[in-house]
């Protein structure tokens, strides 16, 4: 029972765990930034009206969304070295994979956001003499981002939790670091509890933040 638990291994290995958490956060932030940038491009491609571009983007998004993330992680880990000719390490592979994977999910959010803007505004932009890109940049996207900010952040919380799946290729994130500590000190049970609490606290805090944001920035 719980009485037999010994959590004293945690303070002793904090620097090591901190490194793991740093990778988790770094991966989350890079994949979020890259995912939103590429996701926005994908969404604009799908809505561009240029048939080959739109269908290529749709294919990419649907493909990524119908395969389990773990499998995508394994795919990239296998294929990247074959394509570029040399191994790049689990951490770099994870960063590339998550950026590519999350772009598909962010693009669906951005597409919904763009489509939530009334058509008349696009027409107004064209009527003022702006082309497709200026209309997107100055009229549609600023509002779409505002509408979508809470959903984008919710997706980021999911992304933060999903980064734990780099476990499959052995990248050293918070979970892997905790597991290594647990194994070295013979205290795996305590470390799994610890890692669950860390994820729970961070995700809960982030989702409270999203809820507050939702109230404050909604366009009324």
């Amino acid at each position, binding site marked *: 029972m719980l009485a037999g638990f010994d959590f004293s291994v945690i303070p002793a290995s904090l620097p090591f765990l901190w490194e793991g958490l740093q990778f988790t956060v770094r991966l989350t932030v890079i994949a979020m930034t890259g995912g939103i940038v590429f996701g926005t491009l994908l969404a604009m491609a799908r809505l561009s009206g240029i048939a080959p571009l739109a269908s290529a983007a749709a294919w990419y998004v649907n493909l990524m969304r119908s395969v389990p993330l*773990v*499998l995508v992680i*394994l795919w990239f880990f296998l294929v990247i070295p*074959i394509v570029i000719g040399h191994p790049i390490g689990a951490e770099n592979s994870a960063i590339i994979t998550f950026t590519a994977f999350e772009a598909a999910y962010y693009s669906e959010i951005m597409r919904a956001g763009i489509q939530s803007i009334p058509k008349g505004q696009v027409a107004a932009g064209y009527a003022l003499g702006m082309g497709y890109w200026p209309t997107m940049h100055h009229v549609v996207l600023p509002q779409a981002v505002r509408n979508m900010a809470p959903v984008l952040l919710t997706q980021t919380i999911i992304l933060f*939790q999903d980064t*734990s799946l780099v476990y499959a290729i052995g990248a050293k994130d918070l979970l892997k670091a905790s597991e290594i500590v647990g194994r070295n000190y013979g205290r795996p049970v305590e470390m799994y*509890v610890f890692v669950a609490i860390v994820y*729970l606290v961070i995700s809960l805090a982030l989702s409270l933040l999203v809820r507050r944001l939702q109230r404050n920035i909604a366009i009324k």
Partner: protein
Amino acid sequence: MDYNWHWGIFFEQVKAGEETYLDWLIAALGWTVSVSLVAWLIALVLGSLVGIARTTPHRWLRWPGAAWVELFRNIPLLVQMLLWFFVVPELLPENLSLWVKRDMPAKEFVTAAVALGLFTSARIAEQVRAGIESLAGGQRTAGLALGLTLPQTYRHVLLPMAYRIILPPLTSELMNVFKNSSVAFAIGLMELTFTARQMQEDSEQGIETYLAVTVLYFLCAFIANRVMALIERRSRVPGYITQAG
């Protein structure tokens, strides 16, 4: 690109055994499908109960419902799997704990189904709640005004509509369950992802292996989608729910 393609690999024998790689994949597909369906059942039952609890006027039902959702939604599925596999048995009374660790049949399967089921139940609870809340408040009041009890109002008025409304998100959730079952590789359930890694190492034909497994996941998602679309068509209320799939 430097890669030796070998599509015949699926019909070759594995390194240590009589069976072929195809046999491995078929067995793995069986585990993926069965763990997903059992988890889905658990998730539907518990998710409905929790979702309903959150819409009742009783605070002592709403609060635990909210806590349930937050707990299972804010810990990564992989970590939940590991918790159920390594930590929960330690918390059980000694005899039961020993039994679970040593003798429980299909330990990986049971653990994965429970973990995936509870994880998914939080998401289904949110959808059930949203479905009930999307109904005009007047329906609940009308049911109660007609003299139905609160459970009767749920049974005959609110839930039949709510479930129909949330069928599309439930469809994507069922497809998610198949995808999420891949996380069970971490506790050693020999489902598709676990087997893919094993076959990659054993056969050294990674690309063929992962392609085949990807196709099998597609197949699961596609069938799940079609079955749910059929249910959607069959349960449509004329004139109420817009046509779909």
